[in-house]
């Protein structure tokens, strides 16, 4: 029983991190219909930015966070203006290839600037460890939970009570109608990319603070897609629920099945099995809207 609970708690930890990455993905998708494969690489950049501002620059935590967010905002604006705007109205493949290309460029930049090295900054971020009985709750999980809840609260507020939030929801609904009432769709796109970059970078700093910044941080992006698909691509709440479900399932499945399989490594491939199953049986996910097509 302790083994099972420990798996569940570890799964929760990973699930919250998945959810945080998935939120950034859903924001862009909701507003501009762009599937952003590079979301995992925003996390990578965030991890390294956290190290840069905390260690060589020696900034305090809040200063480093603000500086990283400032960089993320500039990054988001540049990416939207230079790469995605020329592709408005292009087919899905062009957009997806653009974000894949963007991810390799970000990976290349990270290699160039930080030498693809492992940069640790343990102990610089506040850590919380809790123990309930025999089960230890990792601080990754708690911080992930807290930050995700804060991020979602802020995003919910923006979406519900601000003018730009209303514009973003409207753009997601119908681009032509939005343009005809005088809302600038390009502003909406820019804001959505900025938000996605900021969310990704914050996630990166948190992950980097726990496990150190390294090139593997970007791999989490690929798994976050399974979360997004399971939760429904246009549902922020769905991303969180699915993140938790998937994180737990993955850990329980790996914990019980890995000893039975010779090669192991089920945790790495598990999200992809979930992806295929979801895509075949419920393509719009748990909480997403079913898409109806007309000729």
């Amino acid at each position, binding site marked *: 029983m302790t083994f099972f609970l420990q798996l569940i708690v570890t799964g929760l930890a990973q699930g919250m991190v998945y959810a945080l990455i998935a939120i950034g993905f859903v924001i862009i998708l909701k507003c501009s219909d762009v599937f952003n494969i590079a979301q995992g690489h925003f996390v990578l950049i965030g991890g390294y930015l956290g190290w840069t501002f905390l260690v060589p620059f020696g900034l305090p935590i809040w200063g480093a966070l603000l500086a990283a967010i400032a960089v993320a905002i500039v990054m988001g604006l540049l990416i939207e203006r230079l790469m995605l705007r020329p*592709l408005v109205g292009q087919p899905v493949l062009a957009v997806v*290839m653009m974000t894949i290309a963007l991810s390799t460029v970000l990976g290349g930049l990270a290699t160039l600037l930080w030498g693809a090295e492992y940069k640790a900054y343990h102990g610089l971020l506040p850590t919380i460890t809790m123990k309930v009985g025999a089960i230890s709750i990792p601080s990754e999980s708690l911080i992930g939970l807290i930050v995700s809840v804060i991020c979602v609260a802020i995003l919910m507020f923006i979406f519900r009570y601000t003018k730009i939030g209303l514009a973003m929801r409207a753009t997601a609904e119908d681009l032509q109608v939005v343009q005809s009432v005088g809302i600038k769709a390009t502003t909406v796109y820019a804001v959505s990319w900025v938000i996605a970059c900021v969310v990704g970078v914050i996630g990166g700093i948190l992950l980097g603070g726990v496990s150190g910044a390294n090139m593997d941080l970007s791999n989490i992006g690929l798994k976050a897609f399974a979360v997004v698909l399971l939760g429904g*691509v246009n549902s922020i709440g769905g991303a969180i629920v699915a993140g938790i479900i998937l994180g737990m399932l993955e850990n329980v499945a790996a914990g019980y099945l890995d000893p039975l399989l010779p090669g192991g490594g089920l945790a*790495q491939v598990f999200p*992809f099995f979930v992806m295929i199953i979801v895509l075949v049986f419920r393509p719009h996910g748990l909480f997403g809207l079913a898409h109806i097509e007309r000729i």
Partner: protein
Amino acid sequence: MGLRTGAFHENYAEEMATFKSRRQLGTVAVLLLFLFVCPLFLSDRMLTILTTVGIAVISVHGLNILTGYCGQISIGHSGFMAVGGYTSAVLCAKLGWPFLAALPCAALAAGVAGLLFGLPSLKIKGFYLIMATIAAQFIIIWIIIQLRSITGGTDGLLVPKPTLGPIALSTKTNYYYLVMVFAVLATITAHNIVRTRAGRAFIAIRDNDLAAEVMGISLWSYKLLAFFIGCIYAGVAGSLLIHYVRFASIEQFPFMDSVWYLGMLIVGGMGSTAGAIFGVVALKLLDELVTVAGPIMAAAVAPQAAASLAIMSHGLVIIIFLIFEPRGLHHRWEMIKAYFRLWPFSHEVSE
């Protein structure tokens, strides 16, 4: 001198002809002759490059049928190549089959894998299908690792020297000829498949699958057929790759290769046989450029610049193409020809 001022077809057969003019036939003949004689004067390194180009061309032709013509985007092509490669490797290494007998089995195995992972395409498309094929890539590689007793898992599998009857295909030159024969065959079949009834159905599905279904095209059979055919090419390419390296390992079929095969299609131009070849050659040339420019960059900027350039060179080129020439090199080439057709006059009579 001077190019033809236009194509003047007088009947349907002329319009459907592979070679529209004698000049075109001549160009292709010269190109084939060049491919035939170039081992005589090219270095081993150049032959290696040409051989990998040939293998990639076979694979990308398959992807072109699947994605460029039928519109079913697949980022799992490298995984399907792995199925073909490992089938062939296991048949030759464990069961001692001859190379030529293993090759069709490899193609068939990859095709069947394609059918299996193509099943979701009946319900989903666009981004969702991309995700399903990415999942296919990772699941295939994972299964190969799991079947350790057959495939050698992460340790890889040694493959014996391929022979073709009495001829050993161990020298670079011999293998080059083998790959080129298959590359030319793949080009011919790819060019002809899209001119058949199935090919026209593929194009209809790509342009609007709902409209295609209303017209009586069975989406079920034609989408799966596209997956089957596309993955057969991948299987042949994977088998040729494994026997070229004479060692099967999962590192030969990385996820990013799947991405770059699509990138080659974008750079070359989707939905054209020549475009697939253009794209492969362009990105392979870029690779060579990077290996030359990498050390220079490393010396001039920073030691990690070479690695950085290697990571992002393909991405940068694809970004540039998506923004400035989304229809690829093949389209640009046609534009250049169209320009010079009437040069020095600035206007062209519309096609």
